[in-house]
């Protein structure tokens, strides 16, 4: 009996100690302590809210929104904004399920039925008011490659489509050589990597391939890859794969290609090779047409453009918001944050991260739309 007593007592003591240590960790450290994040940017005209704001969606805008959140939180110590980069499709689903205040998506809400459901209608029902697509960042898609000894590469829509659907299999193929005079191309086999998860990047890239080479790329554009190659998860996965594979090629957001220091192909749309820069990609955005009505700013990009100096492969990532929030408090929070996100300072800070600036004209419209959120 005494043995069992000792066992019991020590067990209680241990359980107690565990409970105590659990309590100790619960002891709050100064809430919302900023980690010595240098000088917090001057509050400026940031409209601060206090509390939590949750959003979810596109991975393509993760780096952009993270930057906007950081500068907002630095100005507003009581505000907490969470953005979970789970993918455009998932973000829209959670938005419709009313789990998040707004969703990030690489494509505007669909207005045509799919599986008997219309995204825009579902979002409208969830909001109790029309949902708006607000463009916030433009992410050029780079064709990133890794070929030993090749620092400069030019492709056009047709050759790119042939590479990505497996018709061209070696780097010294005459079709590639014809576009790259004066470049010594090795006979390395081409290794294509694609996004294995459902991705807005895949959708926009295949839209480009279809528009630029309709006779070669016959599959319908979509979030799921239909070409050849080896699947890797998320942007980080394809970037890492290309980085470590001689002969590798993939399509990936500019910011990831930059972060991983990958070579990027220039695109020849018919009037000479165009390098990917903020300026050349910005021109493609500026040429986009608004297809939404009123404050719904869904854009349609012209992927088949032949204009000189325009880098055609870009995606616009949207914030999907309710025009009128059932919870007025939540509406105020969304408005305050998006106002900050669309501000000139923040938009400017996105460029070094690999995003193309939105044209001033679009930004003005976004600003008006954000003001109309209630």
């Amino acid at each position, binding site marked *: 009996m005494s043995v069992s007593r000792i066992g019991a007592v020590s067990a209680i003591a241990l359980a107690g100690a565990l409970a105590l240590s659990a309590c100790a960790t619960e002891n709050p*450290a100064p809430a919302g302590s900023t980690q010595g994040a240098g000088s917090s940017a001057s509050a400026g005209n940031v409209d601060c809210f206090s509390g939590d704001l949750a959003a979810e969606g596109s991975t393509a805008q993760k780096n952009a929104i993270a*930057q906007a959140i950081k500068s907002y939180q630095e100005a507003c110590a009581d505000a907490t904004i969470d953005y979970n980069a789970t993918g455009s499709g998932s973000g829209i689903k959670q938005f419709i399920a009313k789990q998040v205040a707004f969703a990030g998506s690489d494509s505007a809400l669909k207005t045509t039925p799919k599986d008997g459901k219309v995204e825009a209608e579902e979002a409208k029902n969830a909001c109790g008011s029309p949902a708006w697509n607000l463009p916030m960042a433009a992410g050029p898609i780079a064709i990133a490659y890794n070929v030993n000894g090749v620092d400069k590469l030019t492709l056009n829509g047709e050759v790119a489509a042939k590479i990505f659907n497996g018709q061209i299999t070696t780097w010294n193929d005459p079709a590639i050589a014809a576009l790259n005079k004066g470049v010594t191309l090795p006979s390395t086999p081409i290794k294509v990597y694609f996004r294995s998860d459902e991705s807005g990047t895949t959708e926009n890239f295949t839209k480009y391939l279809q528009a630029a080479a309709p006779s070669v790329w016959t599959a319908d554009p979509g979030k799921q890859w239909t070409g050849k190659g080896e699947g890797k998860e998320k942007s980080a996965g394809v970037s890492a794969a290309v980085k470590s594979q001689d002969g590798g090629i993939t399509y990936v957001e500019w910011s990831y290609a930059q972060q991983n220091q990958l070579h990027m192909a220039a695109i020849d749309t018919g009037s000479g090779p165009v390098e990917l820069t903020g300026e050349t990609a910005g021109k493609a955005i500026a040429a986009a047409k608004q297809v939404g009505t009123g404050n719904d700013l869904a854009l349609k990009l012209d992927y088949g453009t032949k204009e000189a100096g325009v880098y055609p492969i870009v995606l616009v990532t949207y914030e999907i918001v309710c025009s009128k929030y059932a919870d007025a408090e939540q509406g105020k929070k969304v408005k305050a944050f998006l106002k900050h996100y669309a501000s000139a300072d923040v938009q400017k800070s996105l460029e070094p991260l690999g995003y193309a600036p939105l044209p001033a004209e679009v930004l003005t419209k976004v600003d008006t739309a954000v003001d109309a959120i209630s």
Partner: protein
Amino acid sequence: MTMTAHDETRPGGTGSGARLGTTGGTGTSTTPTDPGRRDLIESMDRPHRGRAIKDHVARIVMWGSFVLAVVPLVWILWTVASNGFHMITTSLWWTGNQRNINTTDAGGGARHAIEGTLIQAGATAAIAVPIAILTAIYLVEYGRGRLARVISFMVDILSGVPSIVAALFIYAVWVTTFGIDRNGFAVSLSLVLLMIPTVTRSTEEMLKLVPNELREASYALGVPKWVTIVRVVLPTAFSGIVTGVLLGLARVMGETAPLLILGPYTKNFQRDLFNGNMPTLPTMINEDRSDFALSTAAERMWGAALTLIILVLLLNLAGRFIARRSAVAK
């Protein structure tokens, strides 16, 4: 004549031969002086050599399998520890959070995630442990007949439910049916489903180990059944039950599927189970994993993984420590 002698010694000879077989090489030390007997023993030695070979082969295969099983374990531990070590040695790691630290920024803390994991595990235990222990008491002390068999069967089924199914079930009830936001408590509820069967089973085993004589002695003194259970059976099995609870908790803390579905990550401190996103170590690992090509994110990922391993290890050690002192085991 010799034949007769041989025959006479035969029973003894077979006996020692059989013993030789079972006790391995030790039999040779008792080599008899009688030449006939020696012949006999030598003839019995031949199959013995065959057995020795089999014994060696079996031993090598067993050790080989053991090493094979240990190699990945040591490899994983070494990889995680060597990559995550310098992250968790900074004091900020244990005091700070990830607020305003983007993927390309280095460092930051994991305290928000550690707290979240501990709070969720605590809430899970607070709900699951009473249910599991009461179920086990019913099954061992009261349950007879069909109801007990059904319950026992249900516990078996529940223990076979994959964690993702438990998570989707809670999502269907919590979000789709009732329209409540995902939060830390929803995560705890799905973890409860995973913890109940493990704790019920381990508690049952512990209660079965309590000698019946103790119960009978108590009844003989005129003590009612429920008092016997509360004052005699449970205290005797107490340390064993606590071990089971801690091991169950350790298992639940490393769960990932319910967290990904029900517990969106946040980089901030969040101690409220019922409002807002709650950070946990597995979701922190997942967050940084999506940018593993960047050394800054990869470092945090390894650090968080090591921290989680350490937390689970501590709980397991606590469980073993209490188990060693288990009165019932003795």
